């Protein structure tokens, strides 16, 4: 069994636990400091990809996340073998990520409000969507409808998982059918597009949020380079298919730096959740206003600055300013 022992460091590699080189500005970053800045480069604002569990810890109220369906396990229905068999890829990904598949879902509170949260993990076979990821998105949506709590999906995925063939393609239909029901039930759905959100995930639930939020400079794209190579030979301009490109083309509502994402979600939920009704179908005035002031106070306390322009999508969107907020 080829167990790769970590005794011999690779050439040019720093001890993996200490330093990370920023791929954008080439700055050497001390990992502990990088973790403190939510894995955003303090120099250039580059947003590193983060595992699902880290993302969840950033977003939810501490200790409130209850994972559901962690035991869903993908199967190799096609007997798929490319350069190595699909089950081997699954085991390798499971070992390196500690997850069973590329999505984690559960319920949590964010700013005191219960939500149904599903987060994808790019580290697991490129965050690709097979039957288990589709099922988890679907169950997150169903829980949102059943409990009438907002649905939040954080996407980070290369698209549909080819090794599951047309079953993976059907996950687009499965997740969209659920999202349509979420919308019909007037349950808010926030879609967060992290780097990268491409292929079948972008072309299904990720693009149709009530509010679409993208992380700065996230790659968001339907047709990948390798897919369109050979089919179409077009020169692509720099910055093509990045979050800012989609902002200017009208498919993303806001570009929000990671440090502000939680506050942004809290603020949006404050608007999208209808205040509770009293017996005669009118909003309860006190109930409608109390949480807002409570939330504003909480928001200010958490972010350290309560200035309203810290939620301005355009200024947050520029990469230079992002981590300093």
């Amino acid at each position, binding site marked *: 069994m080829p167990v790769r022992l970590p005794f011999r460091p690779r050439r040019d590699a720093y001890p993996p636990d200490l330093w990370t080189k920023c791929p954008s500005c080439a700055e050497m970053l001390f990992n502990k400091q990088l973790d403190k800045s939510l894995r955003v480069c303090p120099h250039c604002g580059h947003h590193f990809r983060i595992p699902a569990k880290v993302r969840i810890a950033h977003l939810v109220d501490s200790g409130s996340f209850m994972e559901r369906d962690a035991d869903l396990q993908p199967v190799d229905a*096609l007997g798929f073998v490319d350069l190595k068999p699909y089950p081997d890829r699954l085991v390798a990904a499971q070992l390196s990520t*500690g997850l069973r598949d590329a999505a984690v879902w559960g319920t949590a509170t964010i700013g005191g409000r219960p939500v149904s949260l599903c987060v994808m993990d790019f580290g697991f076979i*490129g965050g690709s969507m097979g*039957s288990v990821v589709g099922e988890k998105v679907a169950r997150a949506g169903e829980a949102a409808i059943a409990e009438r709590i907002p649905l939040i999906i954080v996407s980070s995925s290369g698209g549909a998982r080819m090794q599951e063939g047309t079953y993976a393609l*059907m*996950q687009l239909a499965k997740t969209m059918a659920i999202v349509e029901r979420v919308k019909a039930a007037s349950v808010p759905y926030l879609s967060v597009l992290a780097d990268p959100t491409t*292929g079948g995930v972008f072309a299904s639930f990720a693009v149709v949020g009530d509010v679409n939020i993208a992380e700065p400079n996230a790659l968001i794209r339907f047709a990948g380079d390798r897919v369109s190579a050979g089919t179409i030979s077009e020169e692509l301009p720099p910055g093509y298919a990045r979050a800012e490109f989609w902002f200017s083309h009208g498919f993303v509502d806001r570009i929000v730096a990671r440090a502000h994402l939680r506050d942004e979600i809290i603020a949006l939920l404050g608007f999208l959740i209808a205040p509770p009704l009293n017996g005669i179908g009118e909003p309860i005035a006190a109930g409608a206003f109390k949480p807002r002031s409570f939330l504003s106070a909480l928001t200010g306390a958490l972010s350290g600055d309560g200035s309203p322009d810290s939620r301005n999508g355009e200024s947050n969107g520029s990469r230079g300013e992002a981590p300093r907020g």
Partner: protein
Amino acid sequence: MVDRLLGRPHAEGKPESPTAEVWAHVQQARNLKRPHTLELVKVMADEFIELHGDRLFGDDSAIVAGLARIDGRRIVVIGFQKGQDTEENIRRNFGLPHPEGYRKAMRIMEMAERFAMPVLTFVDVQGAFPGAAAEERGIAEAIARSVGLMSRLRTPIVVVITGEGGSGGALGLAVGDVVLALENSIYSVISPEGCAAILWRSAEQSAQAAVAMKVTAAEQLEFGIVDAVIPEPGEGAHTDPAETARRIRGVVIEHLDSLGRLSVDDLVEARFKRYRAYGPYTVADRPSAPVERPGIAHRLRGLISTRRSMPRFTRTPRTGPSGREEV
């Protein structure tokens, strides 16, 4: 198999490899002379009025749509339209649709719902147009919304895959109550070329990718993605387009009849359940141990626990970076 389908005697002394057989099937599905939506409708319908434009940006000639009368029924027909010669192909962008095509389809599907007309779609597309013009006008959004609309449209939808059913571009018009496929058609999550380019890092392995993805209509029937396969006449649909259209017509009318007997609520609920159920998975006996950073201790622990918790995998688990895929 292809030889048998085409009624040819098997090439003597040189049996075709299974890979070559599947690749021949893929080529058959792509045959330029296969009938596309307009050719089929011309034979199937007594009357057809094509409608144009998405009311937002333009008209996409790679997707055609219109009102048809078939066997006395008013229906809406929507389908992909490849060209049959170079000139028509250039005009129709080689059958690769832009977002306007899907938005036109959605507009007309909503109209079908309002006027209680069943929807019939013909699917034959390699994939949505992968260029910048389609991307920046939101091909992903158009496909997502079209899939979502079809999953809840309150009128019967019959889908016929007539050639290539290529990835999200095909699915954008392929969500329905009944999904039929012509014998030599294919249906896949990504084109064999795209799959080979990503997983094998070489487009030359396309045939192998087609085999691995089990793209043929017969295999998709086994998976339950396709409900019935319609046999093609002679040596394939391209040899007798009119007979192909007549065969499709018969099966489609049959299904429109049976779908018409359901209440709209039952119909939509059954369609939802169908797509909700797709995709096999199992429930593992215990959750895997969380690994923060894979050091040697973690790896060894992982290897031991993998053996215990995942007896399904009989192959020796290998460590190493997993491939990253995108579609």
